[in-house]
């Protein structure tokens, strides 16, 4: 007997094709499908086996697609906002302080790793979790999204945020010394 989660997951390719057809944007489609699957798992009780699973999921997906289209028409920006790093760039989008070359020899120094751990500890919890799942445990982003119940776009933002924050922290506390 397959679990509800497995049966839902098996519909992913169908739903992705459906959403891609509507949105003609692979990432927006993935986001919609992810939101649908998360909503479906949370709403297992309301399904209750009363209709065809695919029909039920497609019903949820349609709402997500409509939301996505609405968001898209409101917001022409193709990449999500990460306003907290605006200060690193000037108004034309160039680096305020251009990144420097980081000497490889730091990787041989114990103190460097102590600083790195301090920097990691300073990240917001979910950001750190996503980043460590990706870089330390080697998960693929779709697995991370599923575990953290966030959309792929949100996932990339978390990872970007982590990398930028760590870069700044290491630059200030290690490479500038």
């Amino acid at each position: 007997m397959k679990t509800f989660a497995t049966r839902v997951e098996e519909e992913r390719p169908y739903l992705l094709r459906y959403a891609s057809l509507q949105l003609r944007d692979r990432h927006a489609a993935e986001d919609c499908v992810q939101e649908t699957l998360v909503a479906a798992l949370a709403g297992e009780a309301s399904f209750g086996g009363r209709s065809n699973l695919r029909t039920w999921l497609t019903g949820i997906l349609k709402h997500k697609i409509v939301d996505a289209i609405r968001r898209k028409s409101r917001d022409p920006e193709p990449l999500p906002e990460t306003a907290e790093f605006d200060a690193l760039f000037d108004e034309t989008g160039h680096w305020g302080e251009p990144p420097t070359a980081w000497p490889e020899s730091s990787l041989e120094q114990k103190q460097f790793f102590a600083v790195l751990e301090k920097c990691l500890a300073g990240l917001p919890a979910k950001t750190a979790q996503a980043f460590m799942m990706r870089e330390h445990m080697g998960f693929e982003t779709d697995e991370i999204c599923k575990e953290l119940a966030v959309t792929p776009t949100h996932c990339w933002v978390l990872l970007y945020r982590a990398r930028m924050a760590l870069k700044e922290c290491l630059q200030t506390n290690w490479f500038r010394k």
Partner: protein
Amino acid sequence: MKLTCKEASRLVSQGLDRRLGPWDWLRLRLHLAICDACAAFTRQMEFLRRAIQRLD
């Protein structure tokens, strides 16, 4: 077509997590070819990845 450094930095990060679409990939390659700062940023991100993998 042209990327700003800010946009390029996002694509560099995303490129570590997924295959970029051909359009973004091309735009990023063109930007990195002429922008030393973003090329250095890319090396920093690769450095960061190696550093985290050595963490135990």
